[in-house]
């Protein structure tokens, strides 16, 4: 890799450096979620039958709708970057807003899903859950932790994309300098991809 101190000299931001840093951050995120996926594998192999029973209770409709929402939001995110690169500020802003709206929809669905479960008495250490098989207890603990931490990432994403929208409107992000938006896109795709794994593991594989 060539050195680019001349660029730092000119006081311009280092595009490649910013992207590199973001990828390193995503590696740490992969490991962060990786541990949870490992916990899932360990417990699934320990309690295959209980996991099968527990997964039948999941609401496949909400899960599928959320998957479609999140994938579409990744698409609008990617489009917003292309729009800003072509200098179309308003289109990019609308697309970012669409991404934010879909992220909110995802969380609203999640809220209904969680509260339905909690109403049934299924939450960590609940009396109803503790009566069930140990494997089912762990399945739901994993469900709440993994979708919860993923949901937190969605929430952070809403905050970050909103900031980017503000920057775009202020023209701090423009067709010359858009690495912030691009890195936000990388983050958002990552959040999407985690869901792509969560969805089959909790809803489809029974």
């Amino acid at each position, binding site marked *: 890799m060539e050195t680019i101190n001349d660029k730092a000299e000119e006081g311009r931001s280092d595009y490649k*450096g910013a992207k*590199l*840093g973001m990828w390193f951050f995503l590696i740490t995120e992969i490991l*962060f979620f*990786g541990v949870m996926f490992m916990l899932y594998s360990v417990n699934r192999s320990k309690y295959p039958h209980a996991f099968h029973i527990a997964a039948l209770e999941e609401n496949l409709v909400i899960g599928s709708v959320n998957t479609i929402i999140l994938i579409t939001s990744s698409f609008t995110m990617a489009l917003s970057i292309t729009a800003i690169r072509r200098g179309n500020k308003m289109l990019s802003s609308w697309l970012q807003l669409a991404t934010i709206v879909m992220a909110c929809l995802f969380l609203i669905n999640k809220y209904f899903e969680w509260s339905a479960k909690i109403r049934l008495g299924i939450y960590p250490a609940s009396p109803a859950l503790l009566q069930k098989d*140990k494997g089912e207890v762990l399945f739901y603990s994993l469900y709440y932790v993994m979708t919860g931490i993923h949901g937190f990432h969605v929430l952070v994403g809403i905050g970050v994309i909103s900031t980017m929208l503000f920057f775009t409107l202020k023209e701090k992000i423009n067709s010359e300098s858009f690495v912030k938006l691009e890195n936000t896109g990388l983050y958002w795709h990552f959040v999407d991809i985690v869901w792509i794994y969560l969805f089959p593991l909790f809803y489809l594989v029974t």
Partner: protein
Amino acid sequence: MNSFYSNIGPRQGLAAWMLSTDHKKIGIMYLAALLLFFSTGTLIGVLMRLNLISPGTFMGAQTYNRLFTIHGIIQIFLFIIPGIPVSFGNFFLPILIGARDVAFPRINRLSWWLYLAGAGLLLASLFFGGGALDTGWTFYAPYSIQTRTNVSLAVFAVFILGFSSILTGINFVTTIHRLRAPGMNWHRMPLFVWTLYSTGWVQILATPVIAISLLLIILERFFGLGFFDPSKGGDPVLFEHLFWIYSHPAVYIMLLPAMGIISEIIPVFSRKTIFGYKAVAYSALAIASVGYLVWGHHMFTSGMSDTARVVFSFITFIVAVPSGIKVLNWVATLYKGSIKLDPPMLFALSFIFLFSIGGLTGLVIGALATNLHLHGTYFIVGHFHYVMFGGMGMSFLAALHYWFPKMFGRMYSERQAKIGWLILFIGFNLLYFSMFVLGFNGMPRRYFDYPPQYFTGHLVSTIGSWVLVTGLAIIFRNLIAALFKGPQAPDNPWGGKTLEWQVPSPPPHENFVEIPVITSGPYSF
């Protein structure tokens, strides 16, 4: 030319420092904080030793439990792990590769703030809600889930510190990839930079694992998830695995930069280029990668299959090879060199000596048969203090004496430094070598009281702790005096060849008037 201490921003005083993105100012602030926590941790250690010559006279058993936990947490999470990268790494990495700052100066400042926040929360956890935790620094489940002491806040503090560590790692790796001066190719980088690079990768690849594990401990305490609780189908050994998947590589986060500093100092004070530059450079990467796969050796008695134990033991022996390569290359550098025993060199040489003892005893406990006898005894305590304090600690002091004139523009009394070093060295061996003997004879670690046959060993060790603290006091008194009254330091007091010695002491804003063009390797004596 104005040194970086002179204020060029609109803010004054503390705000000018806290809001600064200058890698040198951030490095100095980190250094001050590290030394503060190091002193605190050391004093707690002395209190523990005091209890052990007369158990029960000075404190109760529960106080002792809390003290050894806080001692470990402060020394490890607030001093050794951030340690060299955040202080000397921050100050010197950009200068050594010919850059004006790190790749992300504002993230660097954020990581400093996170470090402060983590430290603040940790201190708060000692006084609120159940008080100082008593789990030992390892937070092993299931006890960490059951104890009424304030585990949640302390563990959250460590989580924040981990965040700070990750950001520093990302920042340094990106800096080394992107900001090297023209002509500074990979094989012309100073070896300290190589070790910071390897360390950065370990920070990126290992720290997230502890972050999520600690988060799970907190969630477990609040919601009763059951991952580590056998009554709910969980497995406490799983926590040990997750903990050590980070915490063993963390040993190399502590040690690699320490080795890098030794690789800087040895050539300068032997007036010779380093022997086997590439071997030393790549052995850092080798340690970082193989070190990721040896965590199981902390758990030989925790319940693992024999196959797993044999494999972990074997890889543990493999990881000793690159460390051996480094030691042999340092010694080969000394051979026929023109050795000057200035204070930095004395600390560096004692690093090689003490680290070798620490490393070799590591092999003793890395072997399965001997591990069964020594596991959980003072032998382990002796081993890791030789590696941590004898290794990282000595290297930290070596760096402090080596770069002090550059960082502060003042010179300290070399005579005082040597006296301090000698007393420290004697105290160190009294304190920790006794632990090998105690442990070999079966004294378990973390015990408040013991049968009378261990008294002599504990007495020698405690006396050693007093000698050691005396040495440290002389060293720091000398440096603090130099800070205020020391004579002006020249730009290059030791005759070093790396880039930091080509700029004024202390360095100016943005380090270089003109970015240097590099045409040769770092140690051309």
